[in-house]
């Protein structure tokens, strides 16, 4: 166990953090378990592949979240808003259906071949930190993710919109009665959540390899992170994401075959200890 391994954990945690905070936001506001989040992340990665091929990785880093935000708008307008009075499990399964479709579309557009993206010129090779040579790109991911987390928290805690988001995530009807334009708020949140998934996808593209299943494998972990964090609690999701990332990596170093069950065990243990998850908001 050395610094490099710790950094490996933090890098993975950073990705989980970005992905799960988006998922948690959407859940909080629309009560939807967005099973399409993995698909959004995957689409983000594939878009990043094309964009960094045509333009540059940096362009992708900016454009992909924007594109995904637009997709988020569509999600909100076509499904979440019109169906907001439906049972949440049904809504959840609708997003599941969307995920199935998205996967196939990605295949039809980009093919089944495993693809890969090279890190941007600036971030290739390794840099020496804490006395180890560590891939510069992964350090990049960590920086971006942590910065993002900070901004997100600030936004929720100290801005007017942040206050409205928190209120609407608790009780959307009353929030409306209080004069909050909940449709606007949830539009912001859903598109922002999707954008975060896109960002995660872009960041992940040079990190992992791209194949149409990359979403699924991650989705379950991210769902677990959100529940561990305390459903709907963005802060909780972030902490849980980083925590799980590190634990997972550490246990991989120790024994890979044990590591694969770590997330599941973690979930069970946490929920037995705190049924509401870390953040303590009601899990239900």
């Amino acid at each position, binding site marked *: 166990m050395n610094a490099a391994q710790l950094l490996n954990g933090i890098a993975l945690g950073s990705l989980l953090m970005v992905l799960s905070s988006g998922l948690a936001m959407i859940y909080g506001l629309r009560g939807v378990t967005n099973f399409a989040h993995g698909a959004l992340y995957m689409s983000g990665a594939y878009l990043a592949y094309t964009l960094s091929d045509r333009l540059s990785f940096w362009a992708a880093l900016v454009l992909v979240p924007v594109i995904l935000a637009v997709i988020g708008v569509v999600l909100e307008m076509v499904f979440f808003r019109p169906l907001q009075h439906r*049972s949440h499990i049904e809504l959840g399964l*609708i997003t599941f259906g969307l995920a199935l479709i998205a996967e196939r579309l990605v295949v039809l557009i980009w093919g089944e071949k495993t693809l890969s993206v090279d890190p941007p010129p600036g971030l290739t090779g390794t840099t020496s930190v804490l006395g180890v040579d560590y891939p510069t790109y992964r350090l990049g991911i960590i920086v971006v993710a942590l910065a993002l987390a900070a901004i997100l928290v600030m936004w929720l805690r100290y801005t007017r919109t942040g206050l409205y988001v928190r209120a609407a995530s608790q009780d959307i009807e009353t929030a409306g009665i209080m004069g909050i334009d909940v449709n606007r708020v949830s539009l912001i949140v859903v598109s922002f959540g999707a954008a975060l998934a896109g960002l995660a996808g872009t960041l992940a593209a040079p990190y992992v390899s791209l194949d149409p299943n990359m979403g699924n494998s991650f989705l379950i972990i991210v769902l677990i992170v959100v529940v561990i964090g305390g459903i709907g609690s963005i802060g909780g999701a972030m902490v849980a994401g980083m925590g799980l990332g590190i634990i997972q990596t550490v246990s991989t170093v120790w024994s890979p075959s044990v590591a694969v069950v770590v997330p*599941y065990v973690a979930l069970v243990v946490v929920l037995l200890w705190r049924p509401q998850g870390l953040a303590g908001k009601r899990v239900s």
Partner: protein
Amino acid sequence: MTTLPDAPPADVVAPRSRRRPGRTLLGAGLIVAVLLAGLSVPYIIKDPYTMGLVLEMALLGLPALGIGFLARHLGLISLGHSAFFGAAAYSVGIAVNRWDLSLTAAVGFAVVVGTLVSLVMGVLVVRASGMGFLMLTLALSMALWQLALQTSFRPWTGAHDGLLINAGADASFLGMGPREIQDPGLFWAGVWVSLMGAALVLWLVGRSRFGVLLEGIRENEERMRFSGYGTFLPRLAAFTLTGVVASLGGALFAVNAGYISPDILGFTRAGDSLIAVLIGGPASLAGPLIGTGLFVWAQAHLNFGGNLHLFTGIALILVLVFLPGGLTGAVQRIARALRKGGSR
């Protein structure tokens, strides 16, 4: 906003508990009638392929019954039943291959194992609700899946290669030889009887006082406790009961298929069975069965050009968007509308 976000609201599940003994008898009678009718299926469907599909519908119908029951009576949505199904299936394989038990004995053993798995999982999950329950059941079945894949368990589970059940040439199950076992037409009777038996049991339990108790817990757990009821054991009992049903399905499946792939425990399977249940509509006993039937049929007929998932996704969305409460939900709504219309 006072209802649990993920607990399906009344329109999805939650029968209004106006139970009259008359209806119970009627329902029971109906099930028995269907049971008898069903036995004639192999004589109607001659072609083995189609018969195979029908058999698969019945086999997957068992876990679906369980999922539906939990949704109806406890408002809990489970992704765990494919785990009991799978655990039982593997148990058959292990019992036969490792301890060369007879198939019949193996099935018994498998149901016991599957039930124990559901009992253990139940202890861990029934306190949770809504999303928490969903994720816990998913997580635990994923954990089981990962265990089945562990290379160290290869001698038992065959890990990624799956498990080939070699019961030998003299294998027999309910008087069927190895060939008959794999013939869907001959295997059908046993499966169908199990399915209808399970349906009958769940139906009666649902209408019983125990069913009322479950509904009470679903509606207002705290008040139940303050009224002197324990809420943990009844929940656990209900959960385990559905576990038994799912395990039975898994055991029979294993005997018939002769091969168990790890995918049986995977996320996709769990998702599929839940999708099937919600398409059919969990609010009624028949819903999950109908849903499973449709799902299996679709899987077989939409599977070309690799677009299976595309079509499944589209179908799923269409059904859920336009038929809240699934097919049977829609039917019931129409029926209710008609009754209202009549009464006015």
